[in-house]
């Protein structure tokens, strides 16, 4: 048995590690509440009188609100499409096991393993040829496509864990396929659905390269705005970066807090399960 002061010390150490780890992010958040002079002060200021001016300034920008709306809409729409598609696909692949299922899964996963810069060129040429550049729906569709491999992997993993008996019982009792899929199987893979949904949301919310290349004025999301608008009057506009950055990171961090137990499944394409 550990004595209690030892346990306490252990916990203090863990908390210190966690806080030290978070420090660079925390510094950005703190910077968002500083005036330009405080932000660029040498030596860096630990104590300062907080100001909301950066946020007021940010909200006043023409580009801010459309970007926020874009980010939210594109993430939710594309991930919803992707989840529906991959849920049905996962059912088909898991239950009917068409010839070459393993190969299909392999191909689909490798799409996500390729450096984005290698994929972006052909997609760019295709979008240019179809004049889909800077179109809201084209962007949404692209992200839906982008989210399918990951969701399919997670959902198939979960679905393989549900016994075929459920389907057989359903069929023997004259239930329709739809009934089996939505009333019998769906509730059992709920954790998979949640994990796929939340982590794809984070991925799309975070995605920069494709949005930067394929998007334009109508489809700018927050990371792109953060990168492309950060230069002003010859230098980097740090108050803008810090305040927009702070707003940007709130949803992922909150999601991480509430959906922590799905994180592992999410980060390993559903191949590793376990409690954290």
């Amino acid at each position: 048995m550990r004595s209690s002061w030892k346990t306490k010390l252990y916990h203090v150490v863990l908390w210190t590690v966690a806080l030290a780890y978070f420090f660079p992010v925390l510094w950005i958040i703190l910077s968002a509440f500083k005036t330009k002079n405080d932000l660029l002060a040498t030596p860096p200021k630990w104590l300062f009188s907080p100001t909301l001016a950066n946020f007021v300034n940010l909200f006043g920008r023409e580009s801010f609100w459309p970007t926020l709306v874009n980010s939210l809409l594109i993430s939710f729409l594309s991930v919803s499409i992707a989840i529906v598609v991959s849920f049905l696909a996962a059912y088909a692949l898991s239950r009917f096991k068409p010839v070459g299922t393993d190969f299909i899964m392999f191909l689909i996963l490798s799409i996500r393993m390729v450096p984005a810069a290698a994929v972006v060129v052909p997609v760019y040429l295709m979008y240019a040829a179809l004049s889909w550049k800077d179109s809201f729906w084209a962007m949404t569709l692209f992200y839906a496509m982008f989210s399918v491999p990951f969701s399919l992997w997670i959902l198939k993993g979960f679905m393989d864990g549900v016994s075929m008996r459920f389907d057989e019982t359903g069929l023997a009792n004259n239930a329709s396929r739809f009934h089996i899929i939505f009333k019998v199987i769906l509730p059992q893979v709920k954790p998979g659905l949640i994990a796929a949904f939340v982590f794809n949301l984070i991925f799309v919310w975070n995605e920069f390269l494709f949005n930067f290349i394929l998007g334009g004025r109508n489809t700018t999301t927050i990371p792109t705005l953060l990168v492309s608008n950060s230069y002003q009057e010859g230098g980097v506009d740090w108050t803008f970066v810090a305040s927009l950055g702070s707003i940007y990171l709130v949803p992922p961090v909150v999601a991480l807090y509430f959906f922590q137990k799905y994180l592992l499944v999410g980060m390993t394409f559903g191949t590793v399960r376990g409690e954290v």
Partner: protein
Amino acid sequence: MSFYNYSLTLGRPPRFLGFKNYLDYLENPDVWVALSHTLIFVFFSVVLTTFLGSLLGGLFWRSSKMPGRRLALTLLFSPMILTPAAIGTFFRLNYDPTFGIFGYLTKMITGANIEYLGTEGWAFAALVGVDVWMWTPFMVLIILAALGSVPAAELEAAQIDRLSLWRQFRYVVFPHARFIIILGVILRTIDAFKVTDLVYQLTRGGPGGTTEVIGVMMFRKAFEAFSVGWTSGLAVITLFTAISFTAIFLYLLNMHKRKKIG
């Protein structure tokens, strides 16, 4: 496209080149340099994240009763769910020689004024540092899962038998945890291999091309120099590299599944 001379700026139809683009990679020193940067980056990033991840993972293993554990883990894990593009931008500020907190801290500790992102060598180290910071949480997560897969009963038995800590690790923990750790390392390798936005935001491949990795090179050739055909060939090569990594990953996964069933 990779067999063509295809440029977006010339405004003439692509010309068929056969394997000329591919031959060019063999002769072009830039490609080899970028490739070696990528491999060095992958090596350091993977080794350091695995090492630090094991350390922190081991540290957090017995923490299930800690007050506020969920919040602490959220703070710890947050770097990996933020976008590399934003992280790159943040760290440009943190590394800034005059205003940045890191520049300040090194000056305070060592007295030297180091321009992290502007000096060859340091820029690469700074890049690896950010990547390690971002992805250590992933390895922590993997290590925690791996340690979680060790049956408590076996560990207790080992403790009752008074096995030394090293032996407990070697004969009880490691055989169970091994598989998940290997998967984690492979996923990490794939991710490190495809690093692009972080580098692009942090250094744009500079100074003097010392941080130009393969992803950044492709991006710049395609969208700054507009030589699409040339880039496509490179993309095909990275595609095959990535696919072979994926194949290894799945091979191990399937082998493990079979062992479990058999």
